[in-house]
């Protein structure tokens, strides 16, 4: 069980949106984690430096919050190691071919009403929901 957190989630979502708007305003870039990460998988993109800086900030922020306010960020990863590795590989392959993930397609692309992003988001949301139904209610994994 996790508790319903509408206010924190809405505020967090607004911050994600603010980051997307700022990255477009300053760098002219889509704030998609897939696109930003891809330039950091060797061979490195020529403009790797801002990508690495964005990544460093994204990793640092939760660490700073935990240091400042204590254990306030919930985290529970229920899947066994083997499934975690298989799922990670699938996510990496999928977002590469699909050209984006929840941040790139789901937030930035949808906000621009990009037809590719709308299709991608509908497909991965449906696929995720179907997978959760299978793992939880058919296989009974978690």
């Amino acid at each position: 069980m996790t508790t319903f957190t509408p206010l924190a989630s809405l505020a967090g979502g607004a911050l994600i949106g603010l980051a997307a708007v700022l990255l477009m305003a300053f760098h002219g870039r889509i704030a998609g984690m897939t696109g930003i990460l891809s330039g950091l998988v060797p061979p490195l993109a020529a403009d790797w430096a801002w990508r690495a800086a964005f990544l460093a900030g994204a990793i640092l922020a939760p660490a700073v919050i935990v240091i400042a306010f204590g254990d306030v960020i919930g985290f529970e990863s229920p899947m066994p190691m083997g499934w975690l590795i298989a799922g990670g590989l699938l996510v990496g392959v999928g977002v590469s071919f699909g050209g984006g993930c929840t941040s790139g397609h789901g937030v930035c692309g949808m906000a621009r009403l990009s037809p590719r992003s709308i299709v991608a988001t509908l497909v991965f949301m449906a696929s995720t929901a179907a997978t959760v139904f299978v793992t939880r209610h058919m296989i009974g994994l978690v």
Partner: protein
Amino acid sequence: MRNILMALVIGLVFGAGIALSGMANPAKVLNFFDFAGTWDPSLAFVMGGALAVTALGYRLVLRRPAPLLDAAFHLPTSRRIDRPLVAGSAIFGIGWGITGFCPGGAIPALGLGEADAVVFVLSMLAGIALARALRPLLAGRAVARAN
């Protein structure tokens, strides 16, 4: 240099948003998709908040001729709904549904010092490298089929 510092600041905002929203918590993500079980609708609020701010902000920002720290906007121009887009997104969903981690949630989760996030991110990076290696092979097959 200024663009690197600014990227760090924007990354901090992104990471704080992910952490606050619950997207870095795999159990919360899985519960959002578990309509038949322990459903937690919180992530709809994440999407709602993020989309509202981004849609509004983009309208203002994209009116300008160029971004503040670069010569031009880098916007995807393709409008083709092709097989890699659909198949790739479906495969991504399977991995997201298994683990509860998506790329934007997993990277900030690294900052929580959780081993599971490290295992997931390393596997995901291997998946990105694998896709890169597969791409020429798949393209070659498509050409062979077309001929």
